[in-house]
């Protein structure tokens, strides 16, 4: 076989203490579609960013047809014919299609005269080649998401890209648009372009890929030929790791047997704006209900519905057995629902306010009757939670922004525990948190459940969601597609999240 078109050899990359890639080997032949598969956080995006020159690897070599590319920056990647089509097209929304194409393809030259006719003609040609019926003078903001993707692909074709990376290109496409995209991918392959295809949807991989490489925890754990692929094997490769972390023990009797009414029950809850469809579930006091699923499966969106941020437009929400309408976060708080948002969004705490003020922020009406702040009471409350949750801070007066991620997360948790909630929704509570703080948060969550809280735990970390939950709901495309018993094998959860074997697993 000829030297591969592009070859990543033993790529390693760390961000601070996080080892994103710890030895990835990946090669792509000309005229091949090579799929890249892996859980959230397995290192796919980091690898793409290295391929496009956005990040430089700490170790490892990138070769193109046998030649070491050396230090690869964005300009060099472009020069070597590496193009990437992101899930969210990175086009200039206010410029027209032809201007966007020109910006990508023409070397920047501020003084040269623009030949508008040539630009327009080229845009027409390229759009035709990818089968897009888009007028070149259309402003990009008027285009739909799939149309914008086509423009991106047209740019890649125009640049005569030899390596085209597609990052979940079908995430927002309809069936028909998918088919057209597949046609374009095959067309690229036939012309000798190498395509790196990233997708969570196994059926696409079966339909398109010549080979599949699986990433897990920043390592390439296997490359399979299309003929050898079978579902079970792929899924096992993706999740096949030992539970490297110990989780606090689950209680003996599953809380599901509890005679009390569910703390929270959803009946066919939908929200068009949030993309939540027809979700029914019940969470009992003392239970940790895990919500697994891929990024974008609708878990955070469901949490936002329950907390009144994007109110439901269909179905029924019952709190302690009584139907309630939740229109705003305040309604939710009044019903005893607390929501600790994803740390990543950095809206869990107000960074500029001191710890004490962050803790009291959601209970002003209770802590400060009449509206006068009582600093003593506030301080005492904050000190109680600092001790209880082992928050590492110089004191209640330290600005929350000065704390580490894990401790900020604990402050956010403290704020909601201060409301004495009945239902606690945790959205990725341990994301970006170091290992020590992570197991502390696990211990706290377990204690809270044992004290009678109903906990909904959203997590993309499979071992976490399996190790912590009494039951595991799996979401996919805005729907709750499966509810699995505690300690379900990771393979089962992953196949439900990927949309395989829904029927057998639903409980």
């Amino acid at each position, binding site marked *: 076989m000829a030297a591969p078109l592009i070859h990543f050899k033993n790529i390693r990359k760390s961000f601070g203490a996080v080892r994103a890639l710890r030895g990835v080997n990946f090669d792509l032949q000309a005229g091949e579609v090579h799929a890249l598969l892996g859980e959230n956080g397995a290192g796919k995006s980091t690898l793409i960013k290295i391929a496009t020159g956005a990040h430089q690897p700490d170790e490892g070599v990138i070769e193109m047809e046998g030649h070491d590319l050396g230090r690869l920056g964005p300009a060099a990647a472009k020069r070597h014919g590496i193009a990437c089509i992101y899930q969210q097209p990175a086009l200039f929304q206010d410029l027209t299609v032809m201007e966007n194409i020109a910006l990508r393809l023409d070397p920047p030259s501020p003084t040269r005269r623009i030949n508008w006719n040539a630009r327009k003609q080229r845009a027409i040609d390229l759009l035709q080649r990818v089968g897009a019926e888009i007028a070149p003078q259309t402003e990009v903001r008027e285009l739909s998401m799939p149309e914008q993707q086509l423009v991106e692909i047209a740019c890649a074709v125009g640049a005569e890209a030899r390596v085209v990376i597609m990052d979940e290109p079908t995430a927002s496409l309809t069936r028909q648009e998918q088919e057209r995209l597949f046609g374009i991918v095959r067309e690229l392959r036939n012309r000798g372009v190498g395509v790196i295809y990233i997708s969570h949807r196994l059926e696409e991989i079966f339909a398109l890929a010549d080979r599949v490489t699986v990433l897990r925890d920043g390592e390439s754990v296997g490359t399979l030929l299309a003929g050898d692929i079978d579902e079970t094997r792929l899924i096992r490769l993706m999740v096949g790791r030992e539970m490297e972390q110990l989780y606090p023990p689950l209680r003996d009797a599953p809380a599901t047997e509890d005679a009390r009414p569910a703390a929270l029950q959803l009946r066919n809850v939908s929200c068009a704006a949030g993309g939540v469809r027809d979700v029914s579930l019940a969470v009992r006091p003392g239970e940790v209900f895990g919500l697994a699923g891929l990024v974008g499966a609708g878990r955070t969106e469901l949490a936002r519905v329950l907390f009144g*941020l994007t109110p439901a437009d269909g179905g029924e929400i019952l709190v302690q057995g009584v139907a309630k309408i939740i229109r705003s*976060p305040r309604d939710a708080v009044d019903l005893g629902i607390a929501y600790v948002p994803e740390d990543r969004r950095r809206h*869990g705490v*107000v960074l500029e306010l001191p710890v004490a003020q962050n803790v009291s*922020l959601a209970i002003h009406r209770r802590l400060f009757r009449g509206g006068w702040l009582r600093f003593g009471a506030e301080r005492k409350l904050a000190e109680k939670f600092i001790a209880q949750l082992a928050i590492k801070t110089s004191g209640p007066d330290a600005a929350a922004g000065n704390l580490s991620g894990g401790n900020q997360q604990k402050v956010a948790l403290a704020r909601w525990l201060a409301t004495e909630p009945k239902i606690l929704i945790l959205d990725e509570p341990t994301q970006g948190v170091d290992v020590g703080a992570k197991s502390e948060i696990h211990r706290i969550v377990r204690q809270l459940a044992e004290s009678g809280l109903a906990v909904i735990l959203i997590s993309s970390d499979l071992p976490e969601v399996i190790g912590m939950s009494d039951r595991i709901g799996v979401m996919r495309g805005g729907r709750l597609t499966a509810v699995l018993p505690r300690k379900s094998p990771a393979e089962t959860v992953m196949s439900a999240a990927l949309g395989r074997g829904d029927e057998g697993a639903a409980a």
Partner: protein
Amino acid sequence: MKAFREWSVAGAFGVLLVVLAIVAPSFFQFQPLLSLAAREAPSLIVTGGMALIILSRQIDISVGSQFALCGVTAGLLAGQNLPLPVVALACILAGAVLGALNGVLVAALGLPSIVVTLATMVAWREGLRWWRQGQFVDLPDGLQWLGMPQQTGQAFVIVVALVIFCALAVALRKIALGRFVYAVGSDEEAARLAGLRPRLVTFGVFVTMGALTGLAAMLNAIQSPQVDPKSGTGLELRAIAAVVVGGVAISGGRGSLWGVLAGALLLACIAPALTHLHVEAYWSRAIEGSIILLAVVADGIRQRKVATK
């Protein structure tokens, strides 16, 4: 050091006073100082309101026009021989209504406050010109200094302004609503996730700003026999300058009214101080500008330090 910024502005003000005491002791004469303070008192109130606005991550550049409109309204009502409390109340109410209009456009429609208040600034100013044709409004005889002797009247104006300002400062620190202003200003989404109602807070801040402007216009009107329909020109810029110099972050959520008080005092004294130091008056604007620039640069450097920590 805690509140370093507030102390450094207060320190600069102190240095200015010491320099004046040594070089130009003539500055410290009772009557001119009293007049200066009374003249500046209304803008101190506006500055207090502006601090609320900026803390909540908004801006209001229509206060100068509101000020003129409220003043003229008060003058016309006083001309109808309405009792003084009614006139004062109407003036404050007029301001609150104008503020509420800004507030609705910003909070309910989600429009950027700089654009909204730019529009209302021009609208009120030009509307007033069209309506009054630039005519001064004569006030009835008893109204100037509320019929008190001038010195008593001036003292009254100063006391009212200081009391209002202090009340604002205390409220901002001691009342839950004040804390909401900080929370909304530093992270609106986080405030919403905490169950607060950021839009209501924003609306309330604009109404407060308007009411305070109305009060300031009243305190200004009673200082002269006539109301100038062009009064308040440039007031918004002076208020914003004092707030920024006083250490309130233009990005909201950070700063205190004590710093703003120091900033307002410092800026108010620059021009008269220069006169006493025999520096040409046209330097005063340049020096004020430099102080503002210095304050912003200091904030920028501090922000960078925080960001890289």
